[in-house]
């Protein structure tokens, strides 16, 4: 068994798919694992091979999915790549193997465990991204820049960024995934792009975003007064707005 260790990104995983396929070892003799760092527990009788991410190979795989399966499947797989689950890379590989036989109908084959797994990951990632469209919070930092940070489970920065670029075309904004140290940067009136964020820059942003933005306080005032005491229902609130989202949300940050 040969395990392909690929970078945890769309390009990384698709490159892994390319390499595993090209190895001609047979589908039963290869396995994909999306893992960025060195930390993994080697299994016995496995040979590990690190995949060198190659956008060109990844592009070929994506094109094949689009042509031979469907655009819908391509979107599903891209979102599945953003899932936090490590098993996803292998499911993606199996999905594509199946898809090259079945074509368009592949995404309906929910009785296949790999298809099901992709279906679920796609949905999870989509749901989380949808949540953040509402729950993400920007603060105005000194230089006239809007800064938002979050710690999503999935790697969804590139999924949510287009929504905000469409909504805030004339703003300079940064959406920063703290856990992955990456950010979507949108200069006013321009295209957005992804970039890595240094610890230093992150700290600077955080410091200046916490203070000096008067609308943070106004929002808290509104948030408190809009609730109806006679209808207090924290259970419902917790169901609809799980606690894990709250640490980055202005209205739940009590101390400034």
């Amino acid at each position, binding site marked *: 068994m040969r395990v392909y260790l690929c970078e945890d990104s769309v390009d990384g995983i698709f490159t892994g798919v390319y390499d595993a396929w090209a190895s001609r070892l047979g589908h039963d003799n290869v396995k994909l694992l999306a893992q960025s760092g060195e930390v993994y527990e080697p299994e016995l009788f496995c040979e590990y091979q690190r995949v060198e991410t190659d956008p060109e190979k990844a592009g070929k795989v994506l094109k094949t999915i689009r042509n031979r399966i469907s655009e819908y499947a391509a979107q599903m797989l891209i979102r599945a790549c953003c899932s936090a689950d490590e098993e996803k890379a292998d499911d993606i590989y199996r999905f594509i193997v199946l898809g090259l036989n079945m074509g368009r109908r592949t995404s309906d084959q929910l009785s296949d465990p790999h298809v099901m797994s992709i279906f679920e990951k796609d949905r999870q990632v989509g749901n989380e991204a949808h949540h953040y469209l509402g729950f993400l919070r920007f603060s105005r930092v000194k230089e006239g820049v*809007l800064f938002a940070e979050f710690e999503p489970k999935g790697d969804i920065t590139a999924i949510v960024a287009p929504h905000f670029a469409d*909504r805030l075309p004339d703003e300079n904004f940064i959406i920063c995934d703290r856990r992955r140290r990456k950010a979507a940067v949108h200069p006013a009136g321009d295209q957005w792009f992804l970039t890595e964020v240094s610890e230093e820059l992150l700290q600077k942003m955080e410091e200046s975003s916490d203070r000096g933005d008067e*609308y943070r306080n*106004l929002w808290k005032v509104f948030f408190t007064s809009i609730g109806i005491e006679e209808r207090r229902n924290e259970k*419902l*609130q917790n169901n609809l707005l799980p606690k894990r989202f709250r640490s980055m949300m202005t209205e739940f940050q009590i101390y400034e």
Partner: protein
Amino acid sequence: MCYNMENKHMFAILAREQYLIIDRMVRNMVLQERLSLEEKLRILSDAAKYDVACTSSGVERAGNGKDLGNAAACGICHSFAADGRCISLLKILYTNECVFDCKYCLNRSSNDIERATFTPEEICTLTMEFYRRNYIEGLFLSSGVLRSPNETMEKIVQTLQLLRVKYRFNGYIHCKAIPGASEDLIEAAGWFADRMSINMELPTAEGLKALAPHKTRRTILTPMRKIQLGIEESRAALGMMGGNEGAYRVTQKRLYESTGGRLGTSKEQRGTISEGTLKLLEEGGIPGKPGNEKRSEGTGAHSQRNTRSRTEQTDILREGESAAEEVLLERAGNRMLRPDKLGAARGFAAAGQSTQMIIGATGESDYQILSVAEALYQKFDLKRVFYSAFIRVNDDSALPEIPGGPPLLREHRLYQADWLLRYYGFEAEELLTEQKPNFNVFLDPKCDWALRNLEQFPVEVNRADYFTLLRVPGIGTRSAGRIVRARQNGTLRFEDLKKARSGAETGYLFYYLCRKDDVSCEDRGELHYESTAGAERPAEAVQGRFHDLSAVVFVRRCSIWTV
């Protein structure tokens, strides 16, 4: 301060009440100037919180590449308040000053409370800055009545105009129409707003008279119809961009088509509200189903309103109504020109119209409430009717004391029933009658209905049409759709059904999969059920006599009706 004896005497003869009001006004004027934006926001959001609607859904509008904002058809919740309600819009009043005296309302003129009034600029700044920070989807603007309905509506229009034209805000706006405001102002607001609403407040005209003496059915329904006409016009001019029909009408249309006209309503019946019905509604009656239309139009008014009565165009620019001047000026020239300039990208209240009723402040039954909702969907093509459990904020003898707090469970059942009207093709008359005018709060309305109509069950899942499937407890719109799709590929088995049912909730199963559909009611009494607390009484369940909690337990646990 010194004043002469004459003045003193004047004060003495003023009724104490009047004096208090004047005193309060003076105090407020001084206060107003000192109120910070933060205090205004606190007061005016607190005063707006009882309004239910906070949805931002119903209109899809991409950004235009330069102005702030877009709109997502699915709606986006930005936060959830401590009461568990979604926060999606900056929900505020323009002012909580009010010359009206609605008994249930904190802002009524006879209350001595902190008063505040925003300036249009303040509202725009708050909306823009909150929107930038992704706190909100847009603005929800309502207001107390400042001196007169027209003056208030004018302020609202002015604010919306400023927000759309000067600030170029492209996000979502929900605007409340003020009862009694002129049609022209309502129309002006509609071209700026995505959704308009005017509250019914109370389900009956008597209730309104008792608790909201300054409002009448007429001052509420006239603006409501004006909004409806505006929406229709914009739909005709802009097509899809002008917004789609409400769910109720779409369901009725589908029902009409799928039953060959036996059920549902025809295109004509779905048309704009007739004069006769409007009159009846104004007088506080409840119009019957479309089939009974004649009953409600005894006056002989024409039954189909093809010719809309319009305000005379020359009448429109009256002096003193300058806020909407710019908007209305264009209209005077050519009606259809106006949307091009102002609402071309939006249409007239493209996300439709909604309203709200208070539940439990007056003695109406669920049947009356639901019938009014049905009439509103039918006649005014509303998108939503919201129900708001009465909260006793004023100590007033005209208001009931509700020991258990606001009737939240009743409100919940009404929402469920409302859903049945809009998406399932149920009629209010089927769910409730004059003999049984209230829901059993322990049962969901569909289950309640099913237990009273056992002769319609079980349903053969492989053959029943979509709307019949929808009537089965435990099958929702999603599951029904999946079942219809899945059975095209062959006969369904029990396992398939389990998959087709959405969610993990254990539903009650009122369907069967055998070919024996000639079973009598008695046969169906032989239920296969797990023995549980309530299960000793299957016979009673069949007779539909359960009205207590154990029935719920029983029905929930009974497994498939394998006849």
